[in-house]
């Protein structure tokens, strides 16, 4: 019984700790210099810890499935995606703290960030294939339309000026890829939530969709702030990255609970 409680509440406590640390690192402004350095350290740690926690939670969800269960593969791929992001963040931090580069973009880290989006999209496509018969045609059309509208909106409002500028082609390509992938994660995550609507499993996918929303917001904000030279490591927009992975971790943990308590 105690072990069961520990299994349930220890990860939840860890996520709560990450949220509190995020509020500290990104929630205050105008602190003295020594506090600002501490916030930099905490922020860097959070950007690594949050995707690591998400990867472990997705792995925990994948482990409650039997070998060959296709939905188990979805969570295993999700875990691989989160771990790819973790590695990217470690490299990003290494550029900053060891290499002395304030904003390593584009860099080797972007290779892992791209891998994250590719893997998470693959995982969601696998899940959508499973649940598509459960989603009625109006629901599918609505999500398709919402995804298209979100993507067009992000292109017009944020990416337009960047694309029209003299930025390097690789920067333009990465900016377009991040926005597109992140924006499309929202309807992709909502599709399984719609399929399982009315069941406890739907909440896992709502969390994934919310994570996609945070990633989209963070990506758009990141591109926007960099373009206007307003970006810093402790800017509040970075809290959205952490929030995205906390939500992904919560989704994974909830899915494990649902599967175990069948």
């Amino acid at each position, binding site marked *: 019984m105690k072990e069961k409680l520990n299994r349930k509440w220890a990860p939840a406590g860890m996520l709560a700790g990450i949220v509190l640390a995020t509020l500290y690192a990104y929630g205050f402004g105008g602190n003295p210099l020594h506090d600002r350095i501490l916030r930099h350290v905490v922020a860097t740690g959070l950007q690594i810890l949050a995707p690591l926690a998400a990867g472990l939670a997705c792995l925990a969800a994948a482990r409650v499935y039997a070998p060959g269960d*296709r939905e188990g593969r979805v969570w295993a791929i999700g875990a691989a995606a989160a771990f790819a992001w973790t590695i990217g963040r470690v490299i990003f931090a290494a550029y900053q703290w060891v290499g002395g580069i304030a904003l390593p973009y584009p860099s080797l880290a972007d290779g892992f960030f791209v891998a994250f989006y590719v893997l998470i999209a693959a995982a969601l496509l696998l899940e959508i294939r499973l649940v598509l018969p459960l989603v009625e045609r109006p629901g599918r059309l609505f999500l398709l339309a919402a995804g298209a509208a979100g993507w067009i909106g992000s292109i017009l409002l944020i990416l337009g000026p960047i694309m029209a500028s003299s930025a390097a082609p690789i920067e333009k390509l990465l900016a377009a890829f991040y926005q597109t992938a992140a924006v499309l994660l929202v309807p992709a995550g909502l599709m399984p939530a719609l399929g399982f609507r009315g069941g406890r499993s739907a909440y896992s996918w709502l969390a994934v969709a919310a994570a996609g929303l945070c990633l989209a917001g963070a990506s758009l904000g990141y591109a926007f702030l960099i373009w206007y030279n307003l970006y810093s490591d402790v800017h509040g927009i970075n809290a959205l990255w952490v929030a995205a992975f906390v939500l992904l971790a919560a989704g994974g943990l909830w899915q494990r609970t649902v599967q175990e308590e069948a």
Partner: protein
Amino acid sequence: MIQSRRLVLDTLREGPTLFAGLPGEAVDLDALAAHLVERGIDGGIHVTDGSLEGLLWIQQGEPGETWFFEAAGQEAVLPMTSSRDLLLDIAARGGAISVFVGTQPDALTARFSSATGEPAASLFVAGPMAAVDTTVSAISVEPRMPVDGAGPPAAAMPAPGKQAAVRPEVSGAAAGPQPGWMPPAQRWPAILAEVRARVARHRGPKLAAQFTAALTEALREHGGSADGGHIVAPPLSEAAWRDVAEAACAPVAAVAGRAFVDRTIAAAEHAAGDLSHRRGDHP
């Protein structure tokens, strides 16, 4: 490999033992056979009084052939009499009853079926032993399922070799249905209704509707139906109900996975057992 019927019995006795050396006069043989049938346990009820031995096969939720042996190891040449009466007679003469878990060789079952013309309609089969071939091709002793969730039967019960020294007290559980026991005709509809409720709770009503559609299709083959939460079916064996459950759960397994289905069925069986126990629905 060609084996005699005696060798088949000896091999069966070396395998997992569910009950060993129960006093024949204290055991309701009908209830014991019904219990094994309802729980889907494959094996044989062995009754011996030292001079005569009888073995009733229970296979795939159905009673099968009954074999008789003399003490010398030869098969008895019996008059056309009821196997049930003879087994009861052996038990009443101070015989010991054991239950071994294992499967009957297929080759012999097929021959016996063709000899009798049709499957047995009653629990105990009457048949002329002299008409049955005395050789079989092979035997596999393999429990199909753990008994009462207690792990492999062999681990919980005395080894066959020690059965002469072990004469356990006969409990109600050993001699007949346990509290909470229900025949498949009542138990499985309750289990499947519980599975449906759990699928709806965890995966939503859409997947639950797919489960119901598959269940309806599976029951239709047996002349039954599943209208909403009301499941109607003719009397089916445990094995047939398990096949129905498997077919009904196929759409759920495709989405939520095999592990989810296995846990759900196990939990539903447990919940259905609890429900019947609370209501006192046992014979």
